[in-house]
């Protein structure tokens, strides 16, 4: 075991996700998964003066919530992998600095939940640590301000646009213990099919998701039907349809098992989110809040989680660059 096929790592001693904790903003808490989130927030500002500070508090509350739930102290956690969407992953810095846990700051756009879980599980399974934390967050208003327009600007959102979730999810990955196990990970490549429309991120990320899913299936010699669900991060409604379509064109039928955290988190009709949810916190909170509980209840016994990220900055798209995507797969089983 270890490195398998082209780009997959299969663990001989699968690390265990012993605990998970999620926080969600008011809009996300009012959505179809609202009751599953551990920490349901009433105030988008979390009592702070700015959106950026609010996101740091969101992270702080989520990590503290996870420690409380797992009955651990910060000193019990050996390393921490986390990241967010703000410039220089600054939300994570200010949210995590008081915990004094050795910290790896990650940027994988909205794929950060996958990236952090991949790296944390590699560290644990490789025998370098016993207990590691991984997670991510996003804040709707902080992301709008940085990537798009001021909040009160009277612009119209396009129908392909997705709603960046105000949410956060963190997990504890342990060498031993009870819970769902990470049996394999497939880190994704940067995939670029030439999409330039920053209002259609699902289309930009769908090829990366399919590329990683197909690589995982081939490297581990599995079929889509071997999984109870294959769940992408935030392709949204449009991106999910595209992913199923292009996988089909490449000879793999994902239609029966495929779902998407961005499709699950909102009721697009009544919540007016257009094409579903997005943001690091979308896959982070849906996994830590909803999917993790489904695994514990054994409603799902084996899933492939593929958080998806669109790799762009406001400057890169203004300069006419395309929007490449990346997606990291984490295969999780519950015995």
């Amino acid at each position, binding site marked *: 075991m270890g490195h398998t096929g082209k780009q997959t790592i299969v663990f001989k001693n699968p690390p265990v996700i012993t605990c998970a904790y999620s926080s969600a903003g008011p809009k996300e808490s009012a959505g179809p998964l609202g009751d599953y989130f551990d920490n349901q927030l009433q105030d988008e500002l979390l009592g702070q003066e700015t959106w950026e500070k609010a996101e740091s508090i969101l992270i702080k509350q989520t990590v503290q919530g996870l420690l409380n739930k797992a009955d651990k102290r910060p000193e019990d956690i050996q390393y921490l992998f986390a990241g967010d969407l703000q410039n220089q992953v600054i939300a994570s810095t200010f949210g995590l600095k008081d915990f004094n846990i050795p910290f790896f700051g990650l940027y994988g756009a909205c794929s950060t939940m996958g990236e952090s879980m991949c790296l944390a599980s590699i560290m644990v399974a490789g025998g370098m640590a016993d207990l590691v934390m991984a997670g991510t967050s996003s804040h709707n208003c902080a992301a709008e301000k940085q990537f798009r327009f001021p909040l009160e600007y009277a612009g119209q959102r396009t129908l392909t646009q997705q709603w960046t979730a105000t949410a956060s999810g963190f997990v504890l990955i342990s060498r031993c213990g009870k819970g769902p196990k990470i049996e394999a990970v497939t880190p994704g490549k940067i995939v670029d099919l030439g999409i330039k429309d920053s209002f259609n991120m699902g289309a930009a990320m769908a090829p990366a998701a399919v590329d990683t899913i197909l690589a995982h299936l081939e490297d581990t010699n599995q079929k889509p039907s071997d999984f109870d669900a294959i769940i992408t991060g935030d392709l949204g409604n449009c991106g999910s349809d595209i992913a199923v379509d*292009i996988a089909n064109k490449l000879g793999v039928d994902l239609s029966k098992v495929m779902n998407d955290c961005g499709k699950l988190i909102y009721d697009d009709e009544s919540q007016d989110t257009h094409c579903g949810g997005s943001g690091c916190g979308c896959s982070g909170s849906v996994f830590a809040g909803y999917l993790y509980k489904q695994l514990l209840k054994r409603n799902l016994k084996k899933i492939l989680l593929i958080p998806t990220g669109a790799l762009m900055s406001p400057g890169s798209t203004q300069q006419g660059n395309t929007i490449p995507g990346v997606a990291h797969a984490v295969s999780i089983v519950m015995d």
Partner: protein
Amino acid sequence: MANIKQLKNEYPQIVKEHSPKNKVMINSAKAFLVGGAICTIGQGFTEIYKYYGMAKDDAQMVSTVTLILLSAIFTGFNIYDNIGKFGGAGAAIPITGFANAMVSSAMEFKKEGYVYGMGAKLFTIAGPVIVFGAIASVVAGIIFYFV
């Protein structure tokens, strides 16, 4: 394994097939109604100011200022973005949209301070309108001079 890159040429078409389409007719009608309503309100102010004895030119100028003030207040109370969401270009094109672009930027970036935040970012959205508006007026002026 099948290579995803082989789909590159047909990918724009695939994306187009799955992307929801804008309802151009309904959106145009909404823009017409909202834009028309804002202009009618402006005309209403002009008539009122004239009724109270203001000269026509002065009344028109003061109506414009009134609309800007109202837009700024509506933006501050989180109302104008909803008008824009409904009315699209109908809310963006009139002078009220210009005021909204400036006030929303001022509100958002005030947190980074009055100089590097609000002062520097005030024209983030409205700036290009002023730059190209000024250039267009120069060009129009030159043409007008010779014609």
